[in-house]
Structures are given as C-alpha cells and as structure tokens.
C-alpha cells in the first residue's frame, strides 16, 4: 500500500522535467506572448485603460469599470485596476522562467539568442505597461519557487524604467531584423519580436524618461533598418485584412479561425479550447451594433475638421477613426441617420471594428480577430520628430512629420506652417499625434508625459474638450495599485492620489 501512496499526475508534465530541449525553449517563449491576449491585456481592458483616460475617448458605459476609468474615479478593488495588472505579471512570470531556464539548455546558439531576446523584449514590454500605467510596482525578476518568494518588493517607477531600458537593450542585441532570414523552429513566423521592435520600444522608453538624444538614436536606428514603411491606406492598419504589414513594428496577434472557440478571458489557467479572439471590437463599437462602452470625443471629431487635405477633402483618417453623422455615412452597411436619427450628433468608434465584414459585432460576439498594432512606423517617425524638436533641431523634425501627413494627403507642413518655434512645434506634434493615433491608446500617455495635467491652462483646455477631466485629481494620472496586491503583499503602498 505504501507504494500506492505515490500518485503521479496523469494530466500534466512536471516543471522539473521541462526545459530540456530547443522545443521546450521555443514553446516556453511562445507562451510569454500568450499573456498579451488576455482580457486584462490586449483582448480588452488594456485598450479600455489606455483609451478612456485620453481626450480622444469617453465612456457612457453602464459598467462602472469602464464608465469611471476615464473619469479617474475607479475603485481600487475593481476589475479595471486589477485585470491589466494581473495579465502583465502573468507575462512577467513566464518571461522570467524563459530567462532563467533557457540558458542551460544545450541547443543552437542563434535560436537560443532569439528565444532569450524575445523573452527580454516581452518582459520589457510588460514592465513598460506596469510603469506607464501603475507607476510604482513590485518587480520580480526571478521565479517564485516556494511560498517565501511570493512577496516582491515595490520599487519606484524610475527603477522599473531602468529595468525596461535594460531589457529592451538586451533584446535589441539578441533579436533578428526579420524571421524570414533565420533557420530553426521560429523561421518565417511573423509577429515575433524583432530588433526593430526592441529598438522602437527602447526609444519610446527613453523618450518617456526624457532622454531625448538617446531616444533619437534608437528611432534613427529603426529607420535605418530600412524594412519599415507607411502603408498607403491608413485604414489598413486597423483591419484584419492587412495584418503584420510593413508599417507594423509590433502587434498582438488575434484570430477568428485559429485556436479554440471558448473565449480565453483569463486570468485563469489557459485551457486547450481557449480562443484567440479579441473583444475590443464589441466593447468599443457603435451603439446598436456593439456595446458602445467607449466612444470618441467630439473634440477628436472637430480637430479632424480643422485641416482639410490638399485636395480640400476631409482628412481620410476621420472616416477610418469614427462613425459620424453625415448623410452618406454607413454603419455596418446601414445608414447612420436612419439608425441614429438625423439630429443625433453622437460619434462612435470605427477603428479596430469589423464594419464591412459583419452585420454587427453582436453576430460574432466577442470573437473579433483584428490584431492590435502596438507600435507603428508612423509612431517612430513622430517620436523621432519630437526628439529632434526637444533637442532643439526643430527644422529637422519637419520631414518626418510630413511623411505621416503626406500619406493622408495633407499639405507640406514646411509650406503650411514654416519656421515653427520649438514650443509651437510641440503643439504641432501634439496635434499630429492626436489625429494619427486617435483611439489607439497613446493620447493619455502623451498628455501625462507632456505635463499638461500639472499645467492649469492645459488642464482647463482638456476639461473643455473632455468633461471627464473635470474629475481628475492629482496623482490619478496613474491607475491605482489593485487592492488585492496591497492586501496580499506587505509593504506595497498605494500610489498617491488613490
């Protein structure tokens, strides 16, 4: 009978017998990507958190976790605070395992470097989100082996930024420019992190920490790789039809056809039948065709109307970004005015929606397959221009901005607004970024890092554009550390303002 007391789990491999082969290493790093597609990350709530707080988006959701997010009025024990936090740390846990367990594996060195490069990149990416959204956070860099290892210390945001810079720097040296050129288990797999992705994120991190010269060098390096270009049709960046295109430096892969059919909401343990869907489309989509939890602001709408194209047309990005009231506007094939009334002046999200492919998002429910483009070449160009301007080279910024404007037919900025001062150029870049990246979750990061929330004039201006800023209070430019973390992890204190 004593022998019978040893029972082995017939369902799963133990951690001790894993991490022996190259396949284990690749399977391991693949799973690190998996945390990008959870409800808390890019399946849904990272979109909510990054978008609703900006002046490009607002919420009239009946769900308080979305409704209150952009109003800076979340509860510290709510889902909006905990879901992204949880998803990112699941990614960190996985990345740490790869970084710790892959080096001893006997395998092809080039492949090993790529695996480790991806793990560093992804850990950097997860910590980027944690520092950017949650400010001061715990920073585990090793695997928890037993219960005494569960309590990572909270560190300052600066410390996290340093770690992010270190991880992206390592990733940039280890990663290939393209997986078309490599041999091995990962050959010709697009969507994996590349050297360009690591450099672009390294530049972005340096920009966020105001190290402009160093940031500029990274953006210059991305441009010099020569593999990226803007796609001619702006809208192609937000549909399922043109994924992993030359403008895309890093994107999260979603699919309607690959994987299981049960929504993999997480943050529980992944199941074999988990689908690879994203739920942004049904969450953000227009009333009657989706839940309409997030909507563009009228401020975004009006700003698009400020500058017509050189051919005196409405900026085509407006049409790609939102549904708005105009006689010819179709919403999922139906007339806007017939659906919402002639007088209705509401605007609705179109970016990342499946308009044109399905009669309403309700038909597919939460099963949208549009990849989330996290880093576009347009962003690199505008961030590079910003660095140049901040370094005092305002004139040199023009051509990079104009590349982005030219794609949508806007007149040459050097002609329209020549000789801008550094300060004027800052505002111009802000305007360009606002329109180019509306509803892409970049605006609030910009507002915060530019110090507008601390500038009474700018804050009043924001409040006029988006009344949700009226309930902003100091400190709430960061999300609250989830109560669950504070309660379970001694020494973790809440961010100021919550």
């Amino acid at each position, binding site marked *: *009978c004593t022998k019978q007391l040893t029972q082995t789990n017939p369902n799963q491999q133990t951690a001790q017998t*894993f991490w022996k082969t190259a396949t284990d290493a690749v399977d391991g790093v693949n799973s690190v990507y998996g945390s990008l597609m959870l409800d808390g990350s890019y399946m849904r709530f990272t979109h909510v958190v990054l978008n609703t707080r900006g002046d490009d988006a607002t919420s009239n959701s009946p769900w308080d976790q979305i409704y209150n997010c952009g*109003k800076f*009025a979340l509860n510290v024990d709510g889902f909006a605070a905990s879901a992204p936090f949880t998803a990112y740390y699941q990614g960190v846990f996985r990345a740490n395992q790869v970084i710790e367990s892959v080096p001893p594996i006997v395998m092809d060195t080039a492949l090993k470097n790529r695996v480790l490069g991806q793990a560093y990149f992804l850990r950097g990416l997860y910590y980027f989100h944690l520092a950017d959204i949650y400010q001061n956070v715990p920073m585990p860099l090793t695997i928890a082996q037993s219960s005494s290892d569960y309590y990572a210390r909270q560190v300052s945001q600066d410390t996290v930024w340093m770690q992010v810079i270190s991880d992206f720097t390592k990733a940039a040296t280890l990663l290939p420019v393209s997986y078309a050129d490599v041999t091995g288990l990962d050959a010709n797999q697009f969507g994996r992190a590349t050297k360009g992705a690591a450099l672009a994120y390294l530049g972005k991190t340096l920009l966020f920490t105001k190290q402009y010269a160093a940031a500029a060098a990274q953006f210059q390096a991305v441009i010099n790789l020569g593999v990226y270009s803007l796609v001619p049709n702006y809208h192609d960046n937000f549909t399922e039809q043109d994924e992993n295109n030359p403008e895309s430096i890093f994107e999260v892969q979603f699919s309607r056809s690959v994987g299981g059919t*049960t929504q993999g909401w997480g943050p529980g343990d992944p199941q074999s039948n988990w689908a690879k869907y994203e739920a942004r489309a049904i969450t953000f989509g227009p009333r009657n065709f989706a839940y309409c939890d997030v909507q563009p602001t009228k401020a975004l709408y009006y700003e698009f109307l400020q500058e017509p194209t050189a051919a005196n047309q409405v900026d085509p990005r407006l049409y790609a970004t939102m549904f708005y009231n105009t006689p010819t506007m179709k919403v999922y094939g139906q007339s806007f005015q017939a659906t919402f009334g002639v007088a209705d002046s509401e605007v609705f999200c179109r970016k990342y929606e499946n308009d044109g492919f399905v009669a309403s998002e309700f038909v597919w429910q939460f099963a949208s397959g549009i990849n989330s483009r996290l880093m576009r070449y347009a962003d690199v160009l505008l961030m590079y221009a910003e660095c140049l301007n901040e370094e005092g080279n305002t004139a040199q910024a023009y051509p990079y901005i104009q590349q982005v404007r030219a794609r949508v037919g806007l007149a040459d900025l050097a002609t329209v607004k020549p000789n801008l001062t550094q300060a004027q150029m800052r505002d111009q870049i802000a305007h360009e970024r606002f329109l180019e990246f509306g509803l892409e979750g970049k605006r609030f990061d910009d507002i915060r890092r530019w110090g507008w929330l601390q500038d009474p004039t700018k804050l009043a201006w924001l409040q006029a554009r988006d009344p949700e800023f009226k309930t902003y209070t100091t400190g709430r430019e960061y999300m609250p550390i989830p109560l669950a973390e504070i309660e*379970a992890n001694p020494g973790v204190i809440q961010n100021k303002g919550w």
Partner: protein
Amino acid sequence: IVQNDKGDPLQGVSVIAHNTRNSFSAGAQTDAGGVFTFPKLPSGGEYSFSFSNVGYESQTLSGYRLKPGTTVSLVVKLLQTVQSLNDLVVVGYVAVRKRDLTGSVGIANPDDVKKTATYDIARSLQGQVAGVSVQGSGEPGSFVNIKIRGVSSLNDNNPLFVIDGVPIINEAPYDFPIDDIESIQVLKDASAGAIYGSRAAAGVIIITTKKGKSGPMQLHYNAYYGVQNIPKKLPLTDRVQYQQITDAAETNAGLPLAPANDPTSPQYISNVNTNWQDAAFKTGIIQNHDLNFSGGGLNTTYNVSLNYFDQTATVRGGPGEPKYNRYNFNANIQSKAGIISFGARASYTQSHKQDLTYPHLHPNIGNEIVDLDRAIPTVPVYDTSRLGGFGGTNQITQKAIVLNIIGMNNLLDNYSNRNRFLGNAWVEVEPLHNLKYKMNLVYDWTDTRDFFFEPQYDLGWYYLNTIAYMTDTRGSQYTGLIENLLTYHLETGRHTLDLLAGQSFEKDDEQFLEGIESGFKPPYFYSFGTGDPTTASVQSGEQTATLSAWLGRLNYNFDQRYLVTVNFRRDGSSKFSPDNRWGNFASVAGAWNISNEKFIHLPKFINYAKLRGGTGTTGNQNFPSNYAFTAYINSNANYLFATVPNAGPDQVLASGSIQTQVADPTIKWETKVTSSVGLDLGLFHNMEFTAEYFINTSKDLIAQPPIPLSVGATNTPYVNAASLRNSGLEFTLTYKKRVGAVDLSVTGNAHTLHNKVLKLGGTNDPIYGAESKTEVGHEVGEIYGYVTQGIFQNASDIAKHATQPNAAPGDIKFKDLNGDGVIDANDQQYLGSAIPKLYYGLNVGASWKNVDFSIFFQGNEGNKIVNGLYQTLMAGQYTNHYIDELNYWTPTHTNTNIPRPIIGDPNGNDRASDRWVENGSYVRLQNTQLGYTVPQGMLARTHVVKTARLYVSGQNLWTLTKYRGYDPDIISDGLFSRGFDYGSFPNPRTVMFGVQVGF
C-alpha cells in the same frame, strides 16, 4: 400480546424465543395488535422469551416448558424508557452503550429529523443537535452547508458522513433518502472521531440505516405530498417609481434621460409595468414516496427500500426552471452462521437536478434572485418580437442591463444527472470467544452528467446570444476501500477491556470528459456534430488519491465507574510529498460515572451522573487538489504567428508551454487539537441533561490565501496557512412526562460558538471577502466596511469633512476613522459578527390517544448579515430599486438617510458600509405536525393494512426576524464571506400531507 404500560398494543416489538437447553432460537415480531405468534415451537425447554423495542426497557421471561400440542399465551407489558443510557451508539467501527461513552457524541432523534421534508440529510439536522449548524437555501437540490462546532478548516468544513460503516467520500450525502435512517450520531471531538483520523477533523456524522428484524415480512409505505411557496416578497419600485429614481440618477450625473423613462420622448414607456416577483414566483410541489420491505429469519435479516423524491421550483421558468428529483434503491442483508457473520448492502441512486441558470458568456454577474429583483418594470415578460419570445431591454431607449430570468429559465437547459452505486460487503469471524476479525469492502461509484445548452435568443441588451452553445460533461468517480479490523473483548471481575486494531486502504479516482460545440441552428438537436464542427472541442482529466492508515483503540472500564478510551491512528496520504506524507493522530478520553460511586451520595432526584473529558488530535487532508505539492507545465499557453507578412487572417497556432501556477512543495497535514469536558445527568427519572464545553484548535490549515498578483501565477497555491480556535458551550435537555392521558416530550438544545483566527499565512496578512475581513485575533469572515455619518447637505459640509473624493451634496458622508483627513480604504472597521452568539432548537411533542402533535422551533441569535441584495437594489442605477430608494436626498428633501441616486455613483455611496449590515437573528417555526393514527379496530376489517397514520405538516410557517431580505437562513460561501447574502434562494414555506402505512 405485548402492551405498553397503558395497556395499548405495541407493534414491531422484537421477540426472541430461546431454548436454553439445546440453543434453538426463533424470532418474531408483534403486529399492530401487539400480537406475536410462534406457530410451531419444538416442545421442550426451558424456553426464555426476550422482548425488545426502541424506547422501551427490554424484558426477558424465562422458565417456560412447552408440552406438545399445547398453546401458551403470554401478555407482557413493556415499560417506556425515558432515558436512553442503554441505547447503543455507534462510534467508529463499534457500538457502545450510551452510558459508556467518553467522547462528545450528539444523538439526533430520527423521528424528529424525518419530519423535515428535504432531499438532504444535512438539512434535516438543522436545530436538532447541539453544536451542529446548518445553512441552506431553498433551491431544489442545492448544496447544504453543515458544520460541527464551527469552521475548523479553510476548505471543506463538511463533516464526514459514515453510513453503515462506510465513509462517504464524494460530496454531501444528498444521494441518500432520509426514510432509510434508523439512527444518527454526531461525533464532535477527537476522542470520538479520532478513529476516523484524517477524515474526522470536521466531525463525523454516523448514520445507521434500517435493518430487517426476524419475523415475517413487513411492508411499509410512507409518503408525503406538499406545496411550497416563497413566503415573502420584497417591496420594489413599480414603473412610475422606477422611472422617477432613474431619471433623477441621470439628471444628477448630467446625462440625458433614457428615452424610455423620459415623458417627453416618443419612446417613453407608460404601458408596461411588470412586477417581476409576481410574474416569477409560483407554487412548487414537494413529494416523497418510500416503500420498505423488511424481515428475516433468525439468522438472516433483510431490508429493501425504494424511494422517490421530487421537488419542483418556486420560480417560474418552463422547462428550465430549477427542480430536483431522485430515485433510490437500497437493500441490505445480514446473516450469521456459527462463528461467521456477514452482510452486504447495495444502494443505487439516480438523481436529476435542473440548475439555476448562469449563462456561460456572463459569469459572475448575478444569480437568479438578484437578476429577478433587478429586472425593471418597463420590460414585459413576453415579447414576441424578440428571438425566443421573451422581453428584454433596449440599449438605446432604456440603457439598463437586466436579465429576464423567466425567459432565461425557459430558454436555457442546464442540468446535472447523478447515478450512484454504493456497495459494501463485510465478513466477521469469531475464531475465539470475544476475538473477532472483520473485513469490510466498500465500492462507491458515481457517474455524473452536466449538460448545458444555450440556444440563440434575444433577451435584450447584453443578453443577445447569436451563437448557440452546448457543453456536455461526463464524469465518474469511485472510491474503493478495504478495512481489516481485529477486536477483542475481555471481561474479568470488575474490569472490562475492549481492544481494536486495524488497517485500511482507500483509493479515490475521478475523471471527466467534456465536449463543447457551438453554432447550432434551430431546430436544435442536443448532440455533438449538429452544430458547427469547427467549434467542437473536447477536454478531459483524471486524478487519483490514496490513503493508507493503521488504527488502534483501547477502551477500559473499571467497575462501571471509571472509563478510559485511547485512540491512535497513523495516516499516509498521496496528497503530500513523500517527506510530509505520514501523520500520527491520537486521543485520550476518560469518564467518571459518579452515580455508581458508593461513597458519593447524590441527591435523590439525580439518578445518573457522569463527568467526562478528553483531548486529542485529528488530521485533515481534505482539500480538492491531489497533486498540489508539485509545479506543472501548462501546455495550453498557446499563441499564434503569421506565416506570411502583410496579409489577412492567416495565422497558425504556435504551441506554448510554461509553468503558469505556483506550488508549495512543503505542504503537510492539517491537525486539529480538540479538548472537551462534559457532564451528563439523568434527573427525576424523566429527564436527561448534558452540558459540555469544548475548545478546538486547528493548526496548519491548508488554504489558498491570496498571494500577490505580482507573482504572476494563475492560481493561489495550497499552503499550510492558518490556525483557528473554536470554543463553545453546548446544552441538551430531554424531558418526557405523562400528564393525564397526554404523553409529552420536550427536547431542547442550544450552543454557542466563538471563533478566533490565531495565525494567517506566512505574513499574517488579512484575507478579505465580500464586505468581510479575516484577520488574526478576529473571527473568520468578520463583517468589515465603512461607517456612515449621514449625508452631505451642502458644499461647506463637504469642505468641513475629511477629503472624500468626488463627494457632492446628497452623497453619503463616511467617517474618517483614522482621523488622517482623507477617506480611503483605511477608514474601515469591523461591523459585526456573522457567527450567531447562540444557536438553538426546541422540539415539543405530545400525543393523546390516536392523535399526536409536534412543533419544532429553531433559530439563531446575535449574528449580522450583510444584505448584498438590498445593497444592489439601493444602488440607484439603471436597474430596479428597493422601495426605500424613493426617499432619496434632493436639495429640497434633506431629512433622509438615502443618498441622491447618480449614475456611476462617483462617491461610492453603494460601497461596503454599515448601511447594509442587518441583524440576522431569527426564530423560526421550522416544523409542526399533526398526526392521527387510525384505530386498530377500523384497520382490522381491511385484513391488509396493519397500521396507518395520517398527518399534516407545515414547514417554515412563521419567522420572527428583523432581517429585511427574503430569508435570514442564507447560504453564503460559508467561510470568508459567510455573512454575505447575495440573493440566496429563499427557503420555501411548505404545507404537506403525509401517510405512513404498514401492511
């Protein structure tokens, strides 16, 4: 003829005739007339005749010599025994007389227990035994929470049920009909339960089922049929009131009015006014039928019963409404031949439970009762324009997300079926006098099916389902158990010694296979392959656990004055790593029969007195993970990559494997140290009284305390996390008296319970539940939240108060408890105990001639309940409101304690606070019964019916409580959020009629 002391015939008395000369024996039983016959007893003798019956003093008449061809008549009067000291009590493998008990054993009166109409044995014990607390809901077939002496584990606090010596491992014993019960004993401490070692930590409930008696076959039919209703409705707002409040909430938030609530809008709704409680609540049926055959010869007896139980819903919902039914077959046989005795038992149960609806797409949103009450009056129950035919809200005009629960119940199919076979066989050999060897084999097999089908439907905003979905999960689990026991009994002079040594081995295995498919199109066929085959997937899993034990016990009795019991058990469990696998558990208890002590002269009214006490340890490995000490690789952590850049949706799956969960390799046995002292008294020859004090300390409790999210694990690992202490006093009083022609009996019990957390996890960090906090020095799941201080009347009121983000006039003012000038999470405090200070039950029975009457009160005193349902109905949002919300604050209506309604609730008026904490005390008339036994004279003419009793009974007829919810008897998670009532399904009021017929 056997009679009672009044001269009335006694039925069912067992009579054994024994020829002392040649050891010939024969058995018989008395019929309804009290008559017993031995048609052809061999002549000779001397014969002795022994008469025994439960509740009566046994009697033996001896010295009869029978001559051939003659008839002997005997008329015997049996005296009723009030005191049960000679009753046999089963405590771990053997039975002892109650007077020889050393440990804490509660005995339920099976007749009282059976008066409760329920599917669950645990439910029927509510209020019947001191130290036993039961929480249940009114959902047919739902789980019942039973605890002995409070929370002693952070996992499973349900006691071990042992039915006829067979430990029932898998789930609550709701697979077993109550009619089969012959006796119930509750083992409350280690000295009584330690022999069950690893299982006994939460206490043991020992059930003995009916056995046949020697004599001709007896046939009994028992049945009841009753109607059930939800006895209370909550006062909720009607259409006009709903629209008024919701309009105010939108206006306060600066939002335009929802057109359906805006009288100036063409879409204003004025012609729908659904009262959802009226629409949903209905009369349910509860019925039970039990057919029992029993009998046997002198050496072999048998008992066979067939049972059918059926309970239908008290809420409307067509085919999907909750209901439960069960068929049961149960047979046992025991026989003796020389030195060998053996027996076998087989029972088979088939049950069907239609579950409450929880749509798979919308987890954790609410439940049947919450959804029902939140439904708004402007939605019709039926709406033929929507797919499925049921009403729902409109996203644009009504803005409210509410579920039409009547529609959902009709549309969804969600059930579980269980088939369970439980068999055991035993053989006992007595090679030497008083030395017995027994082997017991048990096989318990359960086969389950959980089915869920969600068709396409349109129940309005948010509850639109375009993709029909089905899951069908088949599972089976078995427990195999072998026990080898050696017992020896020695009596010499004034010494009595009982020894028990044994060994047991048990194996539990469970497996499941789950199929999932979606994309079904009407007309629906509930089989895989009829949907979209590309969506089909299957999952399966299996887990096994083994447990090996050595056990021993010594009972020593000196001169009926001093009794000692020593138990030892060594358990090995596969659930722990080899280093931590074995646990040793022991106990010692003693008793002193004061009344048998010659030098002590007790007052005359004390005819029996016993002082007893004991201490010991039990172990627990009962947590729902068999492989918790090892970390595993999850091979489903997949991702996908594109094979071609700049193209459409052409990704391929990339397999992903990684450790997603953390495990603690050092996990080991939980131990519980129990100590108790008790005093048993027999008074005035008609009263029994027991008082007992206990103190239990549970150490190294296996739990899953929350770990930081920053660990990044998808689980909370099992660790030895906590220590708890429970202590309390228990009293039981039994009194029987004849007053004139009336036989009166009163049984009362009461107990107190104090719970304290001694240690919590590695860091002693508190654990938070729903409006509760579990912290060292406090109770498990003590109620916790903010303290309100009225309402902010104006801006200066807010300015004068501590900073409370987003507060505006009309919002709730929360108290700055720590005085730091800011209202935040640190301004919360304990708001009351979810554990009653006193639990009690009172049974009063009376009989007069052919009429009997009983009444049973049960209650709790001194606990608080967080009324989570009220909280959600007072949120002042788009969903429906409790009528109190009408009294909301406005600048012109300031004399109120109800805050302004505002969409989004920026001030958090609805947060956990003392607003929701209510007194949970109640007294309930749990059961009353009036019975009539048909006189023998009338029955004699039928020649078929021997006995007949008819009764009417009422259950949950009356409750005295201040609690505002449906029912203060709530089911919660029973642990960290134990005082939180979030729409617990109310217990129905039952009126029923029953018959008990003997043939």
